[in-house]
């Protein structure tokens, strides 16, 4: 009988601990334990002030340019809310394209320029033939035009 009580107590203690674990894990999601930071996070000061870190986002359309020395490239990384200027010397991965995902690793200099040591491409989870992609893009464009037109009416 006594043994049974003890076992019950142990089970309760175990469940309590599991609840604590659950609470802690949900709490940590709101914090910033991540592989990379978005420009917004950098702006808000959540990213490291010193040392290396990674930023991630989309390469802004039309922002990619090669510097006169022919070695460095510059481009802007955006998360649609904020953007950051990145400079990099080296070979870009194949999937690196304007409008696509990117993760750059390096550090922020005093001018707010992000000097990258490494640039990685991050793609999304969509797989489809180019024609389908084109059609989808067209449809999307039409839709936004549509909605903006509606907005104009209002």
């Amino acid at each position, binding site marked *: 009988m006594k*043994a049974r009580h*003890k*076992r019950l107590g*142990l089970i309760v203690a*175990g469940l309590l*601990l*599991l609840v*604590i*674990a659950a609470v*802690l*894990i949900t*709490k*940590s999601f709101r*914090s*910033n*334990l991540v592989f990379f930071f978005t420009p917004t996070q950098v702006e808000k000061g*959540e*990213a*490291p*002030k*010193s*040392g*290396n*870190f990674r930023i991630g986002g989309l390469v802004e359309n039309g922002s990619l340019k090669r510097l006169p020395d022919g070695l460095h490239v510059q481009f802007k990384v955006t998360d649609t809310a904020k953007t950051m200027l990145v400079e990099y010397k080296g070979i870009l991965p194949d999937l690196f394209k304007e409008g696509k995902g990117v993760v750059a690793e390096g550090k922020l200099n005093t001018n707010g320029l992000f000097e990258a040591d490494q640039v990685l491409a991050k793609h999304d989870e969509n797989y489809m033939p180019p024609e389908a992609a084109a059609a989808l893009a067209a449809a999307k464009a039409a839709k936004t035009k549509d909605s903006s037109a509606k907005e104009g009416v209002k």
Partner: protein
Amino acid sequence: MPKELSTFSVLYRILARDIKVALRRQSDVMAVFFFFIIAASLFPLGSSADPKLLSAMAPSVLWVTALLSCMLSLSRMYSSDHADGTLEQMMLSNQPTVLVVLMKILAHWVLSGLPLVFVAPLIGLQFNLSSAELQLLAISLLMGTLTLSLIGSIGAALTLGVHGTGVLIAILVLPLYIPVLVFGAGAVNAVSIGMNPNGALSLLGTVLAMALVFAPLGSAAALKIALE
């Protein structure tokens, strides 16, 4: 029966005995200290002298060393009790095996993990760490080493009575140690690059809470299997 001891005092005796045995052979407690200190000092020796490199290496090197020194003392956790038959006697005690195991784990922590919490910041000074980093190092080690003892106990119990245990334990336990290392060293790295370490710390807490539940269960099961 008037002569019966309370659960609490039985458990206390188990804890106290382990600590007494360890203190009797003073070298044991010292040993983890010294291993940590010596091993951590090896890294600067092996690398070309560059103070910046050194301080950048520090969180990972210190945490990995702490992890290895906790791990090294694991094979001792149950094996000597097994060899002289006292483990059998403990399994036949009138307390649930899970609690007995928990006491063994606590004793291991007090003797091997806890000292590191105090020594690590001193060694960290050698590596040029700032006071904020040192503080985080101590906090993360406090939570982390307990988790290491808990998880390690499963490995120690599983390899009981198997020869050449040291290396086998390492293989079993190191993969399970990775989250502790990532979050623990992550917390220190976070402050050193000027970020908030709370995320890493609360994940460390999650791992600790889960280990507190599952490790004693797993170890108790493993010990029963080993003694069969």
